């Protein structure tokens, strides 16, 4: 059998005909395997969902307990004779790669993944296969994520320089928020931190799962005292900065934690004053090193800058092609 008969894109998402299931479908389907809880990968309304326990928990928190007809915790399993297994992807809590194997042919779908150290996600586990379907969100050689600790140091330095300003840090609600909070705590910052209401549920969940984020106060409050936010760190989804919500803070200094912040024009476009280059995806070095390490027979490149990574594979003599899947968003955009 050819790899395309085992997995190929359809309008709904990546489909496995012999197993009759989809991976991260963007529309409701009868059977879905979900890599992780980000909204563009994990949608509500499928008939049956298989995912890690934590991804199922996260989907239930976001969509309510009835987000799917039936759920099954991921484990080694056979679906209509197709063997599937889930392996940590290091992207966010609960995130997994999915390995699909049938009649001696194996394909690994990375979903989104990263290899950098992250105390708030299960560490990536290298898994090879005949075909490696990799994300390429940061698939250009200009993307080399700096050490996240150095980025957090910039934030703390800015707090010292501008103690009268509230530092509003834009973070995606799942994963980025908790990672940034944890990094700030690990850097020794022991002042109160405030979070936007949209982050609370997931922060609470991380804490329940044993990931210590320290005390977090609600940023919803007490209009009488704007000054309470001076020199404080406030975390919120970036979309909140354009809303009236942001008016309660004294002379806010807009920060944004994202891999995109590596490119200055991106920071300027968004009116970000302090970019923090912290990503939950692989950078170029990690993408290419992983392909080298796993040495798959073939690489399919999806969501992101496919062209450059495919070109790099060509240069290395690795068979590669872009896999056009629709419906996935850039990180935190």
């Amino acid at each position, binding site marked *: 059998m050819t790899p395309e008969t085992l997995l190929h894109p359809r309008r709904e998402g990546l489909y496995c005909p012999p197993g009759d299931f989809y991976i991260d479908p963007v529309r409701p389907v009868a059977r879905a395997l979900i890599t992780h809880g980000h909204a563009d990968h994990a949608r509500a309304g499928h008939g049956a969902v298989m995912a890690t326990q934590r991804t199922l928990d996260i989907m239930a928190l976001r969509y309510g307990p009835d987000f799917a007809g039936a759920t099954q915790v991921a484990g080694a399993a056979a679906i209509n004779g197709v063997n599937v297994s889930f392996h940590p992807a290091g992207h966010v809590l609960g995130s997994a790669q999915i390995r699909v194997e049938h009649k001696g042919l194996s394909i690994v779908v990375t979903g989104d993944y990263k290899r950098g150290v992250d105390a708030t996600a299960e560490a990536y586990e290298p898994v090879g296969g005949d075909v490696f379907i990799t994300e390429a969100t940061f698939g*250009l*050689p200009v993307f080399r994520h700096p050490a996240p600790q150095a980025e957090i140091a910039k934030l703390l330095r800015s707090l010292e320089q501008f103690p009268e300003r509230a530092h509003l840090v834009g973070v995606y609600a799942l994963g980025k928020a908790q990672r940034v909070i944890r990094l700030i705590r690990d850097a020794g910052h022991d002042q109160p931190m405030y979070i936007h209401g949209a982050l609370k549920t997931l922060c609470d969940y991380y804490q329940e799962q044993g990931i210590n984020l320290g005390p977090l106060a609600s940023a919803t409050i007490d209009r009488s005292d704007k000054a309470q936010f001076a020199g404080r760190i406030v975390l919120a989804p970036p979309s909140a900065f354009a809303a009236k919500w942001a008016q309660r803070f004294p002379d806010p200094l807009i920060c944004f934690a994202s891999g995109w912040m*590596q490119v*200055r024009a991106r920071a300027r*476009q968004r*009116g970000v004053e302090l970019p923090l280059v912290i990503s939950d995806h692989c950078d170029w070095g990690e993408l290419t090193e992983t392909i080298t390490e796993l040495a798959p027979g073939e690489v399919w490149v999806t969501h992101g*800058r496919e062209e450059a990574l495919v070109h790099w594979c060509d240069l290395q003599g690795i068979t590669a092609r872009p896999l056009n899947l629709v419906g996935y968003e850039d990180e935190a955009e």
Partner: protein
Amino acid sequence: MKRFAALLERLALTPARLGKIKLLKDYFRDTPDPDRGIGLAAITRDLDLKTVQPAMLRELAVERVDAELFRLSYDYVGDLAETLALIWGAAGPAVDVGLAEVVDQLNGAGRGGAPAVMRGLLDGLDTSERYALVKLATGGLRVGVSARLAKQALAGFGGVDVTEIEELWHGLEPPYTEVFGWLEGRTAKPAQAALAPFRPVMLATPLDQDNLAAMDPGEFLAEWKWDGIRVQATAEGGVRRLYSRTGDDISGAFPDVIAHMGFEGSLDGELLVRGADGQAAPFSELQQRLNRKTVSKAMMEKRPAFIRAYDLLHEEDQNLRPLPFADRRARLERFIAGLNGDRFDLSPLVEVPSWEALAAARTDPPHPVIEGLMLKRRDSIYVPGRPKGPWFKWKRDPFLIDAVLMYAQRGHGKRSSFYSDYTFGVWQGANLVPVGKAYFGFTDEELKQIDKFVRDHTVERFGPVRSVRAEADFGLVLEVAFEGLNWSSRHKSGVAMRFPRIHRLRWDKPPGEADVLTSLEAMLPPK
């Protein structure tokens, strides 16, 4: 180098003036000599640095990275320096090298040695430092900090008035160790060593016409506002200098003026060039002589420069700035009488019998190179900066036309994903002919609307440029404001606009009703 790189990174994204000043002050406080002074000079553009060409950087890049990957990256990032800084990757052990040392290395490299020096530096620096290095080496820091703002930060750092810094500045050399010593209270204030220093200029505020009624015409003197550049011509003890209004020394480009500065004193006036008729020529002619380090003889003959003086700051060794303007003016008139009339003349006063009469004069100036009026209180002393009250500028109303958006180009920096540069045209028969380009004058909200219009109605793409639908009954009409119009052989339409900007978006207006070329031609000066 780390501190300088971090400073540039923050400055480039910090919009507020006070924020920038704070960052600069902290940099001065935390960075040792001589690095802080070199950093300051880099920002004020007083640093003497051998620059490298972008082509050399490209060559360096493709030594390290596959050409196609570099192309894709550059395409995405949109800035050569940034692409190079990001793509380089660490090749050697990190090196902690000071800014002064980096500048020494760049200046010490011979023509053939520059690539090796750059390569060596790039290998030892981190991403942010590499970016700073490349920006520095290509001569384009562009961090949104003027020399004046940097001097204000320096003044704030030492708790002195900025004019003290500005007055000293022209006797100083990087790395300014003696200045930092003084500002930190460790050493005495450096003496103004240089003759003919720059004296911070006094600026006018725009006139709010509603306030005229409350102003007494008898208390003011009026002059024409000439469309050249503000300069200060100072000659002391044999040293002659021509300064721009921000204190840049532009003497090198105007030896024809310098040659006739056989006086002892300091004049404030408008630098202009003469056209073939011997009269002041339009700004576009003067522009040919600006931003040059030197000038050819032919250029000086074709466009001789002169100063139309309107103030006298120093005469012999006497400081006239504490005197009332009316007194300075009288001294100026006597002073000018003794100079070569081809190179120095007097900006004439305009009678102010009443505001109504002055308003009428404003709409009908006697010369095309006049862009409005200046009002100065008779009793105003000369103070640096832009005090509100003593001096007003009352510019002529801009010209307005309705033009049709024809092409749009993606902008740079924070607009690199927005179509923000617009080429617009007017009708010539049934066709539109481009008459100008503008990239400001609209709000961020309007920018988003135009960007959407461009994306939704693209006809063709040429790289970063798109042509958009522009038909008699469909398209976007832009009301364009501009300060003047000139003949141009470089444009298909034969006209060139001065200072065009988008005045208003006319979503309501059908393109068929936009202006025609002949109505623009009617605004042109005689050929």
